[in-house]
């Protein structure tokens, strides 16, 4: 096999390696665990101009979609968000009540490295975190060596979930 014949195969292999999905907890199960089964009816928050601008400020880029789905019940809202760490999106779930994060979970991890953010020791730092008036977390999150971009993506999603929760609760920071 020479280069000309093996390169397309190598490129395909590289692409499929990037596309590997590690489903830690299916998003549907996360929502069910938080609110019980059957799932309550989903609601959406529209990312209107003002909301989208604030979301872009939090994410550091424009939001990829114009509306965000969430579920609510028992005084809680549940959000399933996606954000790119380095190259692939990380899917994370957040349960929020009273403007504070009750639970943060990594649901699907697709990056080739940085998967340590899934561990409870890291995620525990988000419990009870709330949003400051300048849309930052009220605490600093300890990073993980080798997972800096994933940690940052997780923090952005946590801030976005808290911000969107404040929108639906009518408590815009």
């Amino acid at each position, binding site marked *: 096999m020479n280069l000309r014949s093996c390169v397309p195969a190598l490129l395909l292999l590289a692409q499929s390696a990037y596309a590997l999905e590690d489903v830690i907890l299916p998003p549907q199960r996360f929502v069910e665990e938080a609110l019980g089964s059957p799932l309550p*009816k989903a609601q959406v928050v529209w990312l209107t101009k003002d909301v989208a601008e604030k979301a872009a400020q939090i994410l550091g880029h424009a939001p990829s979609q114009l509306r965000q789905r969430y579920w609510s019940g028992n005084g809680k809202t549940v959000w399933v968000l996606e954000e790119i760490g380095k190259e692939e999106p990380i899917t994370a779930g957040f349960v929020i009540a009273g403007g504070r994060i009750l639970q943060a979970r990594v649901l699907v991890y697709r990056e080739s490295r940085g998967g340590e953010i899934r561990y409870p020791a890291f995620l525990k730092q988000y419990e009870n975190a709330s949003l400051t008036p300048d849309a930052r977390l009220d605490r600093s999150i300890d990073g993980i060596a080798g997972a800096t971009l994933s940690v940052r993506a997780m923090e952005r999603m946590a801030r976005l979930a808290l911000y969107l929760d404040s929108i639906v609760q009518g408590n815009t920071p």
Partner: protein
Amino acid sequence: MSHLTRLIRFVRHWHARVGVLAALFLILLASTGLLLNHTEYFRLDEVRIRTPWLLRWYGLSSVMPQQGYLTRRGYAVSDGQRCILNDVEIRRCADPLVGLVEAENGFYLATAESLYLFDSEGRLLERLGAQSLPALPIQRIGLVDDQVVIATAQGMFKSVDGITWQVIASPSPSWSIARPLPPDVTDRLHQFFTPDLSLERIILDLHSGRILGRHGPFVMDLVAVVSIALSVSGLWIYLRSIRKGNPEKPSRAP
């Protein structure tokens, strides 16, 4: 003339000639190595190369989808790696398409595992996955009374907004069917389906020698061995000149 003198003359003769040739490779190795050390800074992986002869050299050729889904004002195609809706690539859509329908409020694009909602201007409203759809996989997508209908193994469901879904028993939707693409669409698709290479890969292959094919790394191995030999011979010549008391100018062989 002594044996040693002849040896010195031989080494100096070949040290200079081989050195000139090796220098060309060393410049290549050093410059590509420098670039590869700062891949992220130079964003080499983001620079895409589509030079035809280089693609041919790598054995890459474009595979253009011949069929797609057409609506009144739009089209969608996929090659199983990427999906295009109305001249825009959809992020994270690597599954084969199931269909595309156009309702009054926008487009609904289905793959087996996801349903993408776009407004009439083609902006993504939302991507629905397992937690947001009544059942998966989606087998067909259609329209009935301007509502989207998805067919799954668990039944058929319709929705007006993609948020709430109703089971429907005896629908007669107009299903989305793959059709041959018109020439003007095919022309526009070249920009998406012409293969490319990242500059990083090309530089990496230049650095390792793989760009020359499977024997390329051996060429670079040879360059490495020659470089070691040149270093040793250069050191030897220099040390001899020091011993003779003139480190600046190596003495000529008698």
